[in-house]
């Protein structure tokens, strides 16, 4: 990122002021001169407000609106506070603008209430500007907020960086520059996930599963018990059947009785046959009636019609000639309607010729054809009538015989029955026993069927349970999965933790190297700056073969701190230029905005710092008081400074005039703080 121009409107004590930033290769420093309270920190805050909407002021932190403007405004007026920044980023020019609109609530209200707020980011494409979607996201992407403390740098912190017990700040800075905070958060989240999976695994208890298996086994036992009962019943049934056979045998073996039994069975067989014969004959009679009965009944109708038509023909109402087509049909069929053959052979040729000679009169087919057909059909109707009558007579006779047979058989059967009955008590007893045994056996068969149905039900219930168990087993698989996930999360967590420490150490080493280089460029010989494993920024001196930590002076500490900052800026730039595919931090080119980096140093240290500052970043903006600037700083930095501004501050009286700072490109008044 390269800063081009910053414009402030109604922002704190600035009414409408702008700064153009130095952008040269050599002359890359912009100096803003201003006494304490003139607005240097306000300028630094303008950057953070623009990028993140955040400010930190020591005095009246809630008052963003220019006091003079809000004091003069009426209650209806809307006052816009605007910070705009034009900058280059990745070969494109942008214009970022944050605008808040305030309205005062009472006449003496100098804070106002914010009624509207807007952030815009426009990108230049050719000669046109077009708005960027999600301007806030884009701005925080260009300068991540975690890096803002490093690049919008309050000089008062410089002393602290290399101070005692400030390894936290160093470590945080290192973590930030590499995006390692993201990694740290991931490590924490993985720990949470592991705990959640552990709970999940615990919830999927196994009590239900055990109960299901118990249920299934119980039903299985019940089914097995039923199977045993079934076998018992079958055995009982078989026993009964054997007994029944025995009784039958006994009955048959009795002289007389067996004979009668056999006779009765034979007679019953014959009766069955006779009955089916009668049925068959009746069926055949029905067929005769259904198929040809109509012809028999129709004979008078056809006869009368034939007679009438013949009469009409004689009277000439119906022509006696036949149509050609009708005669052709007869000749083709080689059969006259009277039944004589019309074959084209010696025997029939004479008759065929007679029929052929009938052709030629050209009488229309239709009424005549029908009439002739009906006359001819008499033959077939009478034929049918005769055959129907004959068939009916035959079938009726047969049926009558069968019926007589049937009656005789029935008589014989009842006679045999009577004889059997008179065969004495023992036989009847046996018959009774047989009957009872038969009943008993039938009962057993029903019981067996009953049991079989019960077994079927049990078996289907077992299948149901098995299905439920299999479902539970799936859940158990889920439990195992949850446990595996828990272990997995823990493993990843520890791996990431290791990577995190390794990465952090790598960055520490990188920083250490660069700090050492930078520090070496400016600091007194024999002194080295390093960031140790505890992330402490130390300055050491080589005495003989030993490295001894020296009691740092403020100046040396500040130099070491700046060297550290510079090292981070260059690490970010290197990563950006290396075009690495880092998931955490892609790097970037950042300007360094430093508020009062000189502190209260002596002249020699100020000179050294002035030498190093322009080398820290591509673009450096330095805020300084006149007293800090004068002398060695001015001598060292003037040639690198392309732009210089002076903050002209007027405090106002608070009732008619209000604090006001003007930015001037020329020094108007000479003077110290």
């Amino acid at each position: 990122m390269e800063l081009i121009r910053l414009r402030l409107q109604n922002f704190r004590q600035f009414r409408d002021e702008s700064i153009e930033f130095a952008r040269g290769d050599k002359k890359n420093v912009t100096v803003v001169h201003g006494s304490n309270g003139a607005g240097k920190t306000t300028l630094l805050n303008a950057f953070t407000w623009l990028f993140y909407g955040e400010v930190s002021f020591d005095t009246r932190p809630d008052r963003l609106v220019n006091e003079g403007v809000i004091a003069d405004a009426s209650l209806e007026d809307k006052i816009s506070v605007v910070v705009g920044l034009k900058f280059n980023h990745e070969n494109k020019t942008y214009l970022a603008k944050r605008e808040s609109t305030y309205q005062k609530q009472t006449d003496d209200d100098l804070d106002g209430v914010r009624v509207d707020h807007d952030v815009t980011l426009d990108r230049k494409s050719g000669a046109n500007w077009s708005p960027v979607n999600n301007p806030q996201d884009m701005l925080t992407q260009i300068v991540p907020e975690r890096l803002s403390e490093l690049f919008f740098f309050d000089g008062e912190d410089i002393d602290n960086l290399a101070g005692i017990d400030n390894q936290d700040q160093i470590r945080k800075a290192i973590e930030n520059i590499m995006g390692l905070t993201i990694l740290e958060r991931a490590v924490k989240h993985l720990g949470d996930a592991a705990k959640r999976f552990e709970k999940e695994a615990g919830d999927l208890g196994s009590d239900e599963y055990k109960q299901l298996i118990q249920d299934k086994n119980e039903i299985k036992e019940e089914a097995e018990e039923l199977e045993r009962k079934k076998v018992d019943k079958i055995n009982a049934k078989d026993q009964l059947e054997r007994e029944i056979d025995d009784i039958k045998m006994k009955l048959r073996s009795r002289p007389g009785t067996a004979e009668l039994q056999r006779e009765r069975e034979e007679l019953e067989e014959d009766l069955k046959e006779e009955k089916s014969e009668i049925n068959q004959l009746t069926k055949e009679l029905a067929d005769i009636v259904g198929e040809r009965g109509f012809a028999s009944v129709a004979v008078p109708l056809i006869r009368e019609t034939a007679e009438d038509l013949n009469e009409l023909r004689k009277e000439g109402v119906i022509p006696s000639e036949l149509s050609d087509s009708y005669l052709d049909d007869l000749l083709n069929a080689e059969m006259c309607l009277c039944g004589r053959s019309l074959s084209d052979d010696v025997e029939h040729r004479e008759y065929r010729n007679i029929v052929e000679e009938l052709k030629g009169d050209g009488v229309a087919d239709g009424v005549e054809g029908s009439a002739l057909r009906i006359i001819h059909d008499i033959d077939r109707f009478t034929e049918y009538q005769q055959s129907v009558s004959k068939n009916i007579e035959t079938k009726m006779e047969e049926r009558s015989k069968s019926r007589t047979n049937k009656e005789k058989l029935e008589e014989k059967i009842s006679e045999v029955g009577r004889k059997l009955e008179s065969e004495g008590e023992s036989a009847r007893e046996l018959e009774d026993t047989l009957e009872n045994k038969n009943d008993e056996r039938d009962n057993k068969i029903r019981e067996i069927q009953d049991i079989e149905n019960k077994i079927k039900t049990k078996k289907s219930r077992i299948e149901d349970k098995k299905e439920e168990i299999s479902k539970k087993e799936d859940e158990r698989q889920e439990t195992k999965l949850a446990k595996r996930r828990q272990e997995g999360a823990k493993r990843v967590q520890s791996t990431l933790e290791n990577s995190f420490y390794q990465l952090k150490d790598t960055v520490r080493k990188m920083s250490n190297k660069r700090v050492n280089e930078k520090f070496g460029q400016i600091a007194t010989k024999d002194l080295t700056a390093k960031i140790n494993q505890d992330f402490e920024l130390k300055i050491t001196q080589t005495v003989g073969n030993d490295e001894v930590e020296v009691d740092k002076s403020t100046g040396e500490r500040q130099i070491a701190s700046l060297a550290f900052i510079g090292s981070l800026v260059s690490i970010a730039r290197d990563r950006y230029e290396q075009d690495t595919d880092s998931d955490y931090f892609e790097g970037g080119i950042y300007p360094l905005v430093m508020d009062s980096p000189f502190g209260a140093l002596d002249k020699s240290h100020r000179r050294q710092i002035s030498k190093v500052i322009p080398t820290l970043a591509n673009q450096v903006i330095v805020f300084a008081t006149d007293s800090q600037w004068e002398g060695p700083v001015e001598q060292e930095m003037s040639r690198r400074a392309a732009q210089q501004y002076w903050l002209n501050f007027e405090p106002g009286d608070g009732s008619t005039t209000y604090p006001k700072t003007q930015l001037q490109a020329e020094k108007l008044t000479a003077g110290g703080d």
Partner: protein
Amino acid sequence: MSNSTRGDKPRNPRMGLVKKDIVTSLASSNANKDGNEDYVFSSYKDLVIFSAVLGYREDELTHEGFDNSSDDKINIKYSTFTTEQLHRSVLESLAFQHTGNPDTLVDRNYQMDVLEKYAAGGLQVLDRRLGDIPGDRTDALVNLIQSYADEEGVEHGEELQTILNAFNEDPRVDI
């Protein structure tokens, strides 16, 4: 009833035989009589023809029993009857006997109308004679047919033979 009126009426007229008990108990649309059903007639068409000749025989005419607009009816087309020549002769003879006009021999619509009238009359006769004892139906029909055959006697047979002989003697003149 000549060719000129024929075109205004359907070439293949159909009748709507209402499914009365006497109809459904004697015939089935299922031509297969091998099943358990004791139907006398293997098709509704056969029942209609039998009823019609019976109606003619008993001189009983009505239209009751046929209704083309009925929801519960069996449709029978003219062409269904004419597939059997003897059925066709019955249709034509009935129409002719009803009017004495030979033109009715070719008027299909009129033939169907007359067939309906006699068939409906015949169904009434059957209803009366057969009663409602299913077992005796075949025998009742058999007796009916046999009693008619007895009525015919020999004399009619001789008369018929005379007409037939007249046709056969000299086709040039008599056919």
